[in-house]
């Protein structure tokens, strides 16, 4: 006879343990819903001092830095699909992560993106600049972080002098692409020109390894192309008005007036439309978006 047949306690345990576990699972569900409101209130970072955490990490600061960076990604990612745009813990999380591991380049690079984005981020380019400057101080030979500073000054803060200086500094880093030297010169001479913006976004598109940023860069490039097209169409619409004393109804009018060889399409493949004031616009069905804060064409 087996042990179980001889030992009734084994039978009782075999039945009771799974039953009690089911009870535990059910109870945990209740506890979770009871704690729901408490957890929401407790959405705070208890220790915001990176140096203190570094001391308390007992030599495992690099691993703790990875954990804090992952926490920052989770914090950002959890809010993205919601309407909640309160990212007040993002900057402290990134600061702690980069204090624990000052060489954590992804935290500076992607963290600056999370902080500076207007729609899908904290809309705090000033904090992004602080983060990137901290990254440059810790990693003076990293061209990616240095270029991020130029990007933030150019795209987010429209401070073209500082953007040119940042790109020039990037170009001097050993092994950095020569594109940065050209960018620095262009920004210094032309400020916020569309061509320069296109160059910067192309550089981002070519160099980033993150799919989300790559997709974003592609959308920006499409928007810049549309913005450039609209600029030319507006000019042609004015010429059309001079010749025919009315604005064109569609781009086909410009083709029929022999002012264009073919109907231009936006990056989504839709023809542009004209408003009553003669200003060209994207077709409502087009998914292309033009950043209202994009550099003013010169």
């Amino acid at each position, binding site marked *: 006879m087996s042990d179980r047949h001889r030992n009734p306690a084994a039978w009782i345990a075999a039945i009771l343990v799974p039953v009690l576990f089911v009870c535990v699972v059910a109870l945990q569900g209740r506890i979770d819903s009871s704690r729901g409101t408490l957890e929401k209130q407790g959405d705070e970072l208890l220790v915001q001092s990176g140096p203190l955490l570094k*001391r308390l990490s007992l*030599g495992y600061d*690099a*691993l703790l830095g*990875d954990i804090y960076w*992952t926490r920052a990604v989770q914090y950002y990612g959890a809010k993205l699909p919601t309407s909640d745009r309160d990212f007040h813990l993002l900057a402290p999380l990134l600061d702690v992560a980069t204090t624990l591991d000052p*060489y*954590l380049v992804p935290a500076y*690079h992607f963290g600056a993106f999370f902080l500076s984005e207007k729609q899908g981020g904290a809309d705090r380019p000033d904090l992004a600049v602080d983060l990137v400057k901290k990254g440059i101080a810790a990693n003076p030979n990293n061209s990616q972080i240095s270029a991020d500073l130029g990007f933030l000054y150019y795209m987010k803060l429209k401070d073209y002098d500082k953007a040119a200086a940042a790109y020039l500094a990037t170009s001097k880093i050993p092994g950095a692409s020569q594109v940065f030297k050209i960018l620095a010169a262009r920004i210094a001479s032309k400020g916020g020109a569309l061509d320069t913006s296109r160059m910067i976004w192309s550089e981002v598109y070519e160099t980033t390894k993150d799919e989300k940023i790559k997709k974003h860069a592609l959308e920006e490039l499409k928007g810049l192309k549309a913005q450039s097209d609209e600029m030319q169409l507006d000019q042609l619409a004015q010429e059309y008005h001079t010749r025919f004393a009315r604005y064109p109804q569609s781009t086909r009018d410009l083709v029929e007036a022999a002012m264009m060889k073919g109907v231009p399409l936006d990056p989504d493949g839709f023809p542009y439309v004209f408003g009553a004031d003669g200003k060209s616009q994207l077709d409502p069905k087009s998914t292309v978006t033009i950043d209202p804060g994009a550099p003013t064409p010169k």
Partner: protein
Amino acid sequence: MSAIPGVVAVNTFREAVRDRVLYNLVFFALLMIGAAILVGQISIGIDSLVIVNLGLSAISAFGLVMAIFIGVGLIYKEMEKRTLYSLLAKPIRRWQFIVGKYAGLLLTLFVNTCFMTIGVGAALFYVNRSFARSDVYILVAVYFILLKLAIVTALALFFSCFSTPMLSTLFTIGIYLAGIFSTDFLNVGMVTQNPAVKAITRVLYYVLPNFHNFDIIGQASHGFAIPPQLILQNTLYALLYSAILLIAAAAVFSGRNLK
């Protein structure tokens, strides 16, 4: 040189294997597999970084737990089981017994660490599909962890020569923590105006084992070069410190009345 410490060392290693000490490798393997698969899903840009940081931290933490908890029981267990008396009745000196026990635990830690390092390498290869030249610094970091464990083992063995396992554990952990913060002792001394405090903190800085010396996990994970002179200096430091502790342990154990 007598072969007795070697025999004791091999037996200590066998005993550790019999006690299923190396079972921790299963947990380590699961940790590495989990990290390799999960990190890419929940974080950005640190897939291989986490493998190295987590792997090296786990090697260090598992090693420390083994060095402390096995180290403090090395002598006590032999006394409790009364096997020490039959051993010492043979032509074996007490210092040889101490050295043998120390070498045996170090061998156990070395084998354990080697398997874990292979695990880290496998996980890293799974994530990156190749090895970089700078990955060699991960091996340097592993070597530094072993040096740290050599000192911790000697500490645990030293305390176990005159104290109970519970107290020896507390003493070893206490000295280990103090050794991590030894640089802070020096900093406290620098900001104080009191010459006595200044002197005490300075003495503490040099007398306590400086475990911060061996902490290069962060640098290794980023592929930063480790200067060869640091490798040499840390090796000498660990050798010297372990020798001091072993000599002290042998002296205490030799003078101990075992009746």
